[in-house]
């Protein structure tokens, strides 16, 4: 049995791959690990909903779950922070270096050519 973190990830992958919202039972059927107890799937879906990664809607007696945002949107959020483009230059991350603009980039490019000779 996989850890909860690993399971959260596989379930998000399943839901990102789907076009519409799924019930816990449908998610359970799509998951690779067949021995998984249905309650475990429910628990993880609930956790992901509480963390804000999933939204759920009532469908008869069951809940249907779908991702709150696309995978690409989350990748973009990570990269905006990584490239310090969120506006608030916080100390949350330690970046290696940043891209520079226009004329400065030209100076760096020339330095790079010199170094590589």
């Amino acid at each position, binding site marked *: 049995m996989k850890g909860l*973190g690993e399971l*959260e*990830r596989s379930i*998000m992958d399943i839901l990102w791959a789907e076009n519409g919202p799924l019930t816990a039972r449908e998610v359970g059927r799509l998951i690779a690990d067949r021995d998984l107890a249905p309650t475990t799937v429910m628990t993880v879906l609930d956790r992901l909903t509480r*963390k804000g*990664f999933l939204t759920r809607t009532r469908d008869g007696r069951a809940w249907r779950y779908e991702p709150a945002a696309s*995978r690409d949107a*989350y*990748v*973009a*959020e*990570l*990269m905006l*922070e*990584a*490239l*310090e*483009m969120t*506006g608030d*230059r*916080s*100390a*949350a*991350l*330690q*970046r*290696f*270096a*940043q*891209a*520079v*603009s226009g004329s*400065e*980039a030209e*100076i*760096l*490019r020339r*330095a*790079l050519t010199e*170094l*590589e000779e």
Partner: protein
Amino acid sequence: MIAAATLAALATVCALGAWRLTAARWTWRAPRAAILLWQSLGVTWGLASTGALLAFALEPFGRGIVHGLAYMGHHWREPHDFLRIAALLGGLALFAVLSAVLVAAGAQTLQARRRHRLLLALIARDEPGVPGVRVVDHPGAAAYCVPGLRSQVVISAGTLSLLSADELTAVLAHEAAHVRERHDLVLLPFAALRWVLPWTRTVHDAHASVALLIEMAADDRARRQCSPKRLATALLRFGTAAAFATPHGALGASTGENVMARVNRLVKPRAELPAHVRFAIVAGSVILTASAPLLWLLPG
């Protein structure tokens, strides 16, 4: 009166020292010692400026700051003349604001990191070629660490294709240095100070200077394990990576200068400051840091 005057003088010396230090270049030849000096200037400035106000306010009690405050709290006395009450309120307010902002900055940073970690757990993958490093599938060039008790080093897929194997090793060594020396904790108070005094040029420059010194310290650590030239070319490649062109001045204007400064240090290293000079800087920092708390405790 002597304690108040001494503390006021100390605060002024720290402010002037910080102002001079923002323009200094010798710091690049001993980044670690310079970082220590910056930290002691920051702490001492905070304690000395609040202390000067409090020392003046509590002077009639003749007990110094710490014991004077305790005495005042115990006996429900307050200074009688208006100027001293104003100084008391000013000193306490300044102290409260500085501490509160530091705590708030810490909390905000922790929260941003927690969110970032959650996203990484769902999105980032492991790459067999670079064990222990998380990879985010994005064509832009990014390499960073998320500091914490269990720090994570993260690179983008764009970085993997941008750099050669040697350059990647150099970048990872640089990030490992940040992780090991907890540079994020060094920078946090300076980032916090910028919240309190956003319009102050010196505070802004101080933050930038310390940020650059931290990068240089990590470069120095990395070059012990990898080729400095490869670290330099990696820096230049990152700087010119146009995959994510810089929009609407989100980045500081000095970014390019900073990259060149780091590259020049790596390619044409100037001698490190002599050991006795570095020792003098460290010793000076320690004495400076001890001075303000001592003046807080001193009676009269």
